[in-house]
């Protein structure tokens, strides 16, 4: 594991540097026309170095330079009070809350559906095709309506957003758990039968433990999907709070730097969440006596 990891660090670092370099070039190319226009109107003539610096420091650039975004993220993360409306931590917290709630409901629902599908043939035959079809539907399109409709019955705040996350996250869990609950070999199931184990005993002592690796693998997908659901769910609420709201507000006022900062914040949250699930999976599987791969 370690040896393989070391072999990757250099290529990843170089490609990241290349992306950064392309980003700077892109910043210059995309901001230059506007800056030239600005200078012509203002009657300013600049040297080429000066001009280059000007494209990197516009207040509302078409494409903000990486250091502008980095400064914005740093300021809004560490230098502001967490309760402040401009703090990225505050907005990330709002999004995180609905992500986690939706993820929890979605995971519970997914496990429930999977247990049903494994134990009832008629559910397997009738529900499974719809489960798959439900994911070919661009369900995010429902987001504004769910929010508005639930607001009409005085249900606002966390739950409507969380419901969108739930819809996006239950499917990977359901499919993964169906696979996991069916993963015990025939020989293991036969062994349970020789012990005269009841259906419930087979479930708790064989099927459920066997499905744990599948559960964590699908939870990793589900939590990323859940975050996307939470962000999109914040769009139609009229930009109150959260990373999605920050994006929307940025697009209203052309605050590109703010939008990029919000994107970075969302990405950091996503990586933290996936890492957390990964860590939990390692701890649980070690406790269950699995060998580390």
């Amino acid at each position, binding site marked *: 594991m370690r040896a393989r990891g070391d072999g990757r660090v250099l290529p990843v670092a170089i490609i990241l540097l290349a992306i950064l370099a392309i980003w700077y070039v892109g910043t210059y190319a995309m901001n230059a026309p506007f800056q030239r226009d600005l200078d012509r109107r203002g009657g300013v003539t600049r040297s080429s170095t000066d001009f280059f610096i000007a494209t990197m420091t516009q207040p509302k650039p078409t494409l903000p330079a990486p250091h502008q975004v980095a400064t914005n993220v740093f300021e809004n993360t560490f230098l502001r009070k967490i309760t402040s409306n401009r703090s990225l931590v505050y907005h990330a917290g709002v999004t995180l809350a609905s992500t986690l709630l939706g993820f929890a409901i979605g995971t519970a629902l997914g496990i429930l559906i999977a247990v049903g599908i494994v134990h009832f043939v008629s559910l397997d035959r009738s529900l499974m095709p719809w489960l798959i079809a439900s994911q*070919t539907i*661009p369900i995010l399109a429902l987001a504004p309506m769910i929010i508005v409709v639930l607001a009409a019955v005085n249900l606002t705040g966390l739950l409507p957003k969380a419901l969108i996350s739930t819809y996006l996250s239950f499917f990977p869990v359901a499919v993964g758990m169906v696979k996991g609950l069916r993963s015990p070999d025939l020989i293991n199931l036969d062994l349970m039968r020789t012990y005269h184990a009841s259906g419930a005993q087979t479930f708790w002592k064989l099927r459920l433990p066997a499905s744990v690796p599948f559960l964590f693998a699908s939870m990793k997908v589900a939590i990323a999907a859940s975050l996307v659901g939470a962000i999109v769910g914040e769009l139609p609420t009229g930009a109150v709070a959260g990373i999605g709201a920050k994006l929307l507000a940025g697009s209203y006022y052309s605050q590109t730097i703010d939008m990029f900062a919000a994107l970075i914040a969302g990405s950091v949250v996503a990586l933290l969440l996936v890492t957390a699930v990964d860590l939990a999976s390692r701890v649980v599987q070690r406790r269950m006596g699995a060998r580390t791969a």
Partner: protein
Amino acid sequence: MKSLQLWQPWVVLLLLGMAWLGLPFHSADPSPGLEATVFILLLLGAAAGAMPVPNWLRLIVLAVAPHATAWLLIRSLLERPGSADDSFFLALAAAWLLAWQLVALLSAVRCRRRDVQASLALIIPMLFGAWILLFWEAFTRGLGIPFILLPPPSAIFARLVTSLPVIAADVNQTIFKSVLVGYLLGCGAGFLVAILADRIPFMRRGLLPIGNMVSALPIIGVAPIMVMWFGFDWHSKAAVVVIMTFFPMLVNTVAGLSVTSSIERDLMRTYAAGYWQSLVKLRLPAAAPFIFNALKINSTLALIGAIVAEFFGTPVVGMGFRISTEVGRMNVDMVWAEIAVAAVIGSLFYGVIALAERSVTFWHPSFRSGRA
């Protein structure tokens, strides 16, 4: 056919007993004729389910009784909206239990003939979907749920039929411009970069971890930025779709290109095949299942990307635009109609790719027939 424990008929009798005590169905306007017909139909169904009758007879009765009951019950709501009583829903639940028994019987059918298998695989989910619609219709009409909250499916369908031209224009804008262009460009770019990464191992080692990481990120967030860069028309939506579809294609193609074993590649080398020959004749076909997997994932992502990007600004046409404006005007039936259309198109898109996969990767174990 193995013998099944069937408990549904007895619960049906119990529910019917409770419904009997709670008569009439509609407190405002009782109709004894309807009630008598419903009870006779359901008793017939329960009898066929519980008594030792030939299987074909049981299937026919169970196919007819619950659905005729449901149709009668829902039709009775047309004249008396929002007046359904407890016993109405008890009778509907009894009908549903009979339908469940039908599904259980059909699921237990073991038949070698492929046409029977295929039609069963279609009928069973169809029954499930039909009952969801029936319950939806019965609850919204029977309880008089406000139209804004949840319109009944029949109203959505009526709206869909009357506003076909508007929806067609939206589909043209969103699907045939934003989604298709973005999908083709994004998948194509992902594929080409994957080939490039395959050619240069250094790039592969650097790109793969980054690609894997990016797939966990909420990429949809670039939508407002793309709208700002490329304007309100479909170009910005296509750009969002390109970005969303690029990484799944890249990661999957790179993974697929590495599945061939060294023994197969050595064979190509003994044939004196060059890089491109072994790529086209061996490694790309072997990677096809992975590539199709990416195409399938992307078909959903592309629709989501285009529709969500339209929330950030569009010309006055497009499915995302229609959804967000009609929600604001409380025309909820129109929103549901758009979503239904999006669902059908999403499923068709997916289905076309699945069919193409079947014909291209017919050699793959998951498609070879011979499974029982």
